[in-house]
């Protein structure tokens, strides 16, 4: 038996969704962005809504998301993706609209746009990649950088007395009446990938029903920014990021989840 005998359609157990392009991804090996892209596109394929979906790419490592996601997309100015998505969704209420944003984009420069899109209950999905750092610009401190965590602009660790505390954006937006579904997930293990994918499906189903804004945080790793190997980064994330940003649903069907 040689390789040719194995590569047969009937032996196929998994393939890349055609909703991802064949372009070589610009993400570092081990980065969470690639997995997050894949599952969003898989859900859009499974729901058969490619022609009705418009994505909004941020400024950050995923600025080039439109090179990889095989859907119509608009690239937004840094932090303004929720406003861009609002402009699209208000004009096309029947379409599926989502933003895909990093923590610097969503929780620093774009804080106002995030809060107000959530508060207005725009019928969109926001996917929030929280890797605790500015990946694109080379590892500077983000609003979500953990206390004591080193970055190129907090070389001695984040000093909360002078640099402020990390902001838990997801907890914050869950309090707003405009959000309908708020959850925090991860994609570093198969079980988490499955849960995140399910969350994306719920968010897009909600959008079909005009329920309000769905907000999905994905606690992510940025091994390059953290100056670790991909494996080290995942371990560090599990030991440090996830205790600070615990996974699970914060708001379901418009109701806060009781802890």
């Amino acid at each position, binding site marked *: 038996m040689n390789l040719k005998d194995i590569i047969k359609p009937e032996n196929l157990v998994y393939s890349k969704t055609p909703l991802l392009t064949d372009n070589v991804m610009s993400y570092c090996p081990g980065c969470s962005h690639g997995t997050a892209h894949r599952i969003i596109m898989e859900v859009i394929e499974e729901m058969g809504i490619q022609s009705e979906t*418009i994505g909004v790419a941020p400024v950050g490592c995923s600025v080039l998301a439109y090179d990889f996601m095989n859907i119509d997309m608009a690239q*937004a100015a840094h932090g303004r993706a929720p406003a861009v998505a609002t402009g699209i969704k*208000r004009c096309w209420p029947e379409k599926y609209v989502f933003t895909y944003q990093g923590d610097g984009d969503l929780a620093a420069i774009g804080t106002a746009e995030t809060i107000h899109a959530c508060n207005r209950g725009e019928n969109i999905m926001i996917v929030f990649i929280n890797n605790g750092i500015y990946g694109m610009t080379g590892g500077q401190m983000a609003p979500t950088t953990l206390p004591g965590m080193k970055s190129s602009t907090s070389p001695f660790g984040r000093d909360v007395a002078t640099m402020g505390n990390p902001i838990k954006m997801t907890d914050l937006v869950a309090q707003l009446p405009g959000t309908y579904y708020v959850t925090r997930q991860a994609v570093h293990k198969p079980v988490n990938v499955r849960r995140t994918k399910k969350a994306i499906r719920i968010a897009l189903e909600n959008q079909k029903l005009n329920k309000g804004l769905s907000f999905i945080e994905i606690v992510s790793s940025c091994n390059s920014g953290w100056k670790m190997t991909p494996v080290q980064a995942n371990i560090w994330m599990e030991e440090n990021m996830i205790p600070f940003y615990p996974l699970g649903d914060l708001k379901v069907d418009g109701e806060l989840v009781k802890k």
Partner: protein
Amino acid sequence: MRELRLMKGNEAIAEAAIRAGADAYFGYPITPQSEVLEYLMAEQPMERTGMVVLQAESEIAAINMVYGAAATGKRVLTSSSSPGISLKQEGISYIAGAELPCLIVNVVRGGPGLGTIQPSQADYFQSTKGGGHGDYRLLVLAPASVQEMSDFVKLGFELAFKYRNPVLILSDGVIGQMMEKVELFEQQPRVTTFDPAWTVTGKPKERERNIATSLDLDPYRQEKHNYKLQAKYKAMEENEVRFEEFDCKDAEYLIVAYGSSARISQKAVQLARAKGIKAGLFRPITLFPFPKQEISALASQVKGILSVEMSAGQMIEDIQLAAAGKVNVQHFGRYGGVIPAPDEVLEALELLISGGSK
């Protein structure tokens, strides 16, 4: 049937937007243009035409909502006044870079900073030379009446889509706030077809995905994109120059003024003529493209040019470039929110004639 109404300039913008078949307006309150949003909210255009109106959380959000709607091929506008327009500049640069059509209205007030809420024309540089970062131009229309506030909304959308470029209506607090008779144009239908070559409306099987972006990390491709933009601005310079002349045929002295300054200067020309001075007024209607050739020709004819602008002297630089040293060009302006009177303009003209300057 003619439909005449007595309206404020700001109200005319709003009514014209509905009638031009606009799909959406996004804005944030600021004096002296808040009536645009107020009128639209009161008029309930969703009921009239299906037009979306939303009060955004800031001018930054508003212009980015415009970007999103424009990316899908919708007819969309925003309005603001000077400080708010400054906040929009990053978004405007993105819209120009991504080649999206939209309409922006600036009802200018005095600056710098928070300045004043009184009228001014001190945003000329910002409007005509780019405003935000990068090499780009807006097509700039300068209305001098409430009628033109209405007409230029329709014209502005046509030009925005013709060139896939943001169009700016550069007005000021006088034109925005004053009431005049307006003949309203008939209701235009909203667009229902979207150019499959570029609009971001959801990718059907039969076409490649469309992307609205101003990004291209490859410098050579980015340079090519810039060439394309420059060719577009050149085409505007060739095809879209608009202006108006009063008593220019036999003029020995020329006033150049736009917007409300042109209204004031027209009176000054009448006063001058009554005194036997052969004065004329040239009113640029498009500030970009600037009527260079026309001013150059007039510069060969007249003995002096007075640029009148409610600023410390911004448009004068373009006049001087066009006049190319053929004739003396001087500036007269009141600024910081002060509106000049016709006799002050006349005085400045007489000073120019006598060879003096301020």
